[in-house]
């Protein structure tokens, strides 16, 4: 049984102008220990696929026309909100793109970490290293220790002091690390990272990628990394899916797709990335490829 299996997912969105289909038959299978990259341009449906997995798309305006999302054999499209709450944070972790808007500015970083740790701990005290029936006080104490441990793990110096800081006292890279700590604290089996490094400098990006990579090797979790940066995919992903207008055009191992792309769009995308050895005039863009010819 795969960790996550998406079959023929079709999603539409309602607006004043009528209903538009956003995802057209997405198929994706993620096993433990795999890092899946999902690449595509703005509006191709990458983020909505990620949000569908954690069931964070409000319905309405969203509507699933067909398909299933099975997480360890369980169809997430059919679970209740109550059951989803038990899964989110504990079994499915999410990292969002913008660390400034996804941390609450009026609460200390520690408070926010402890909240998530307690949420996971209430569902399953073993996450905090406690047996069933632990008192609330010991839970709270263990949650705080766990929070410090996680902050330390994601590379925040002097974690036990910094835990009582507010988000504005942290730099962008550190805030992103806090988000990763938040996502990892419940020891999820599946991590969905939506553009985790887009807002960061390359040097910080390299550190964050290293961190995610080490977590995967250490705990053998599955990762879905949503990004528009082909370089990031080539660096850490084992597999990649190329999305265009709500469809997966091509998917497979990174070596297959990026080295021998079978689809003209993937090739065109690769030709658009300026690297340190691209010469003047070599960048092609999508050139003569019209969206209609690809759909």
């Amino acid at each position, binding site marked *: 049984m795969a960790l996550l299996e998406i079959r023929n997912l079709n999603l539409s969105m309602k607006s004043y102008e009528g209903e538009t289909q956003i995802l057209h038959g997405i198929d994706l299978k993620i096993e433990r220990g795999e890092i899946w990259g999902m690449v595509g341009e703005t509006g191709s449906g990458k983020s909505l696929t990620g949000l569908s997995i954690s069931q964070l798309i409000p319905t309405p305006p969203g509507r699933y026309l067909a398909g299933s999302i099975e997480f360890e054999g369980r169809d997430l499209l059919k679970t209740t909100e109550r059951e989803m709450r038990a899964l989110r944070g504990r079994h499915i972790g999410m990292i969002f793109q913008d660390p400034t808007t996804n941390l609450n500015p009026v609460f200390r970083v520690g408070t926010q970490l402890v909240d998530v740790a307690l949420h996971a701990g209430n569902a399953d005290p073993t996450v905090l290293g406690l047996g069933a029936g632990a008192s609330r006080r010991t839970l709270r104490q263990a949650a705080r220790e766990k929070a410090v441990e996680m902050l330390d793990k994601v590379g925040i110096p002097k974690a036990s002091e910094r835990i009582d800081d507010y988000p504005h006292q942290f730099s962008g890279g550190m805030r992103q690390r806090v988000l990763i700590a938040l996502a990892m604290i419940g020891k999820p089996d599946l991590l969905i990272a939506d553009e985790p490094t887009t807002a960061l400098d390359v040097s910080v990006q390299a550190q964050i990628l290293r961190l995610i*990579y080490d977590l995967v090797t250490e705990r053998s979790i599955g990762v879905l990394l949503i990004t*528009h940066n082909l*370089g990031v995919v*080539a660096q850490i992903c*084992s597999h990649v899916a190329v999305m265009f207008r709500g469809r997966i055009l091509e998917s497979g191992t990174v070596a297959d797709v990026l080295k021998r792309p079978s689809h003209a769009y993937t090739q065109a995308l690769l030709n658009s990335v300026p*690297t*340190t050895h691209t010469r*003047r*005039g070599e960048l092609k863009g*999508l050139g003569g490829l019209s969206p209609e010819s690809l759909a």
Partner: protein
Amino acid sequence: MSLVVENVSKVFTGPRRGLFGGREDFTALDNVSLEVKKGGSFGLVGESGSGKTTLTRCILRLEPLTSGRILFDGVDMHGLPPAEMRRLRSRLQIVFQDPYASLDPRMTIHDIVEEPLVIHQEVVKMSGSQRTERVAELLLQVGLTTEHLFRYPHEFSGGQRQRIGIARALAVRPEFVILDEPTSALDVSVQADVLNLLHRLQEELGLTYFFISHDLGVIRYICDEVAVIYRGKLVEQGAVADIFDRPQSDYTRMLLSAMPDPDPDLSPFRRPV
């Protein structure tokens, strides 16, 4: 025309620490010197907070200098009286980073691109209909059509908006164009088109570019010369090929190695599949 930045420093004074406390100074630019040659493309690379934008603001005289000089065509810009500075500004234009924030949502594309022609009326001396003609010509030049003239910014995609931003910068026929991360908000495919457009315009109009970016690939693609800035200091500068192939400083080496390459074989942590 050339731009010379001579030993420029910029110190920002921080808030007072308590009622009788002192102020803490922050040195945003520390003795920066560089020279942009006519017709060339000069790249400035650095991470966030390194002083890239402060330097451009100083060049545009939006920020007073703490010390040093900036010479444009041999004239010390920061010593010019306001009227002459305004005249000079018509030769020096900027394209901003965020194509979503830098166009007024209530103005039509025609009005947006026309605005610099109106502001620099005394330099360009055009009548209303001449200006409209010029705007139409500019739109064609950046790959848009005249049917876009009376539309509003929200009707355009990110790449098209950035083309509008470029058309606006070129309206008064400047010699020197500052490009402040013009493609960082765009998809790679769109970025490639915009970069190629910038190449073409440079050849056609003989422009001089001052290109700011944190993306080394983009800098390599567009620039002939590059300076690496770190915490307000220039770490290294020289011809693009030299810096990229034989970086001298540790910081440049680190930046280059941190840049993700789309070739999976070059990954520092390629796992066996």
